[in-house]
């Protein structure tokens, strides 16, 4: 299933946040969105999944949903959003319980996603016992459990320390290579963007408009640090983002 954004604009009262966004997220690709702080990235993601209504424009789901999908547009939140009183398995089960599935089907799905995210040994742990990276893997497992068509991720690694986030980045790349999931991935981090994104969307400072969409046609597996072309792309992206970021920064301190 593709996700198509058509002429999307959004405002909060007088605040123009997004303007005329046109974008298609094709099945099986990861679209990374970068842009300066406060330009409306999180807002865009909330609009994509229907957590907020756009002021104008629309978002269309194109094509068939994957079989067995319980929730086609599924989020992975920056701060995990796990229920602290439920175990790892309980947190996954939470999003399956209201679909009228049988107890064994729920159990099968839980076991499957915990296996895929290498959490099987931790199914009875509670979030408090887990490190940040593990918590985010639980959140990822929960998202995968409903077999989503598109994974909507808002800076999923930014609450983690750099080593943990490196590990989780590997997990995401592995996962994509195995399952070719579709995703919109918001990030501040250009390295993340060039390592995961098939497309990188560069937003301008607020009101966010699309400055450029950079396609990266290098296999995810081949995107190593030493890849010269990748380094060049990252440099170009940085050029684009830097001026915007600088101006946005000044604006914030002035107001």
């Amino acid at each position, binding site marked *: 299933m593709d996700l198509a954004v058509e002429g999307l604009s959004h405002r909060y009262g007088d605040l123009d946040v997004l303007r005329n966004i046109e974008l298609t997220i094709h099945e099986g690709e990861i679209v990374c969105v970068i842009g300066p702080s406060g330009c409306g990235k999180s807002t865009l993601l909330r609009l994509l999944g229907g957590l907020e209504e756009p002021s104008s424009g629309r978002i269309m789901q194109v094509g068939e949903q994957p079989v067995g999908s319980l929730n086609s547009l599924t*989020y992975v939140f920056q701060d995990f*959003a796990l229920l*602290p*009183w439920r175990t790892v398995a309980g947190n996954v089960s939470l999003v399956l319980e209201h679909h009228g599935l049988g107890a064994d089907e729920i159990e099968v799905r839980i076991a499957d996603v915990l296996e895929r995210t290498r959490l099987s040994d931790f199914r009875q742990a509670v979030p408090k016992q887990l490190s940040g990276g593990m918590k985010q893997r639980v959140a990822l497992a929960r998202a995968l459990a409903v077999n989503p068509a598109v994974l909507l991720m808002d800076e999923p690694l930014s609450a983690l320390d750099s080593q943990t986030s490196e590990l989780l980045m590997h997990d995401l790349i592995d996962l994509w290579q195995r399952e070719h999931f579709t995703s919109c991935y918001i990030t501040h981090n250009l390295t993340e963007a060039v390592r995961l994104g098939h497309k990188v969307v560069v937003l301008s400072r607020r009101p966010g408009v699309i400055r450029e969409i950079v396609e990266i046609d290098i296999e995810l597996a081949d995107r190593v640090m030493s890849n010269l072309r990748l380094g060049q792309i990252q440099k170009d992206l940085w050029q684009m983002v830097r001026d915007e970021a600088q101006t946005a920064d000044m604006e914030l301190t002035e107001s």
Partner: protein
Amino acid sequence: MTNTTSQAYKPLAPVRPVRFRGGGFRTVPRRFIGLIVFAMLILLWEGGSRTGLISALVLPAPSQALDAFIDLALSGNLQKHVFASLQRLIFGFSLGFTAGLIVGAAIGLNSYMRAGLSPLVAAIFPIPKIALLPLFIIWFGIGEGSKIATIFFGCFFPTVIATYGGIDNVDRTLIRMGQSFNMPHRDIIWKIIMPAALPAILSGMRISASIAIILLVAAEMIGAEFGIGAYVLLAGNLMATDQLIAGVGMLSILGLIVNWLIGTAEKRLLDWRN
């Protein structure tokens, strides 16, 4: 540096160790200290009474209060007083708490309810409910009704406020998460909002329970044949200070038991917090 056991210092430079200064300001659980203080106080009190330092008129000795308690138990009136009080307490508290929980949840979850009811709650909450007792006697009769109503209203308002305050403070991202997985409203309320508000609700319960005991005694002092409050009042009227202390001791123990029950509930239900 390879030499780890002994350091070569700069000649003649003053050498001093770093002094530890990070101690104190940390509560460490010290068991039995509370019990020892309590026992010492009782002993001092008993000693003071025996030696005549404390006049029996001013304050009877703990042993005398204990005698009065044993007399009460032997006369068979102890059960009657305790039973009457417990009955009122349990009825008034559980009804008030349940109703408060329902109304508090309604205010927390529905903006019409909030707009309509929360000013009303704010207006009635600060009234000492005991001031309304004469009114309750007219409405519900001099018997059990007015006493239970007093306790009911005393527990109702703090519970309402604790419940909707707790619901207000539920992490919005958790609710968002529930919505993003298409959870029905009913599930979001029961599986996310209520468990998240539970700590606040339980601390509200602690407050309501102590208010309930205060109101119980006050209501029993105004008109009751049996009940710990009535017993204390009668003792006061007769200047029987030993009985008075015995009654007050019973109230203290009742308070401790209630506190312990709620503490246990908290430990059971909120063990995910630590």
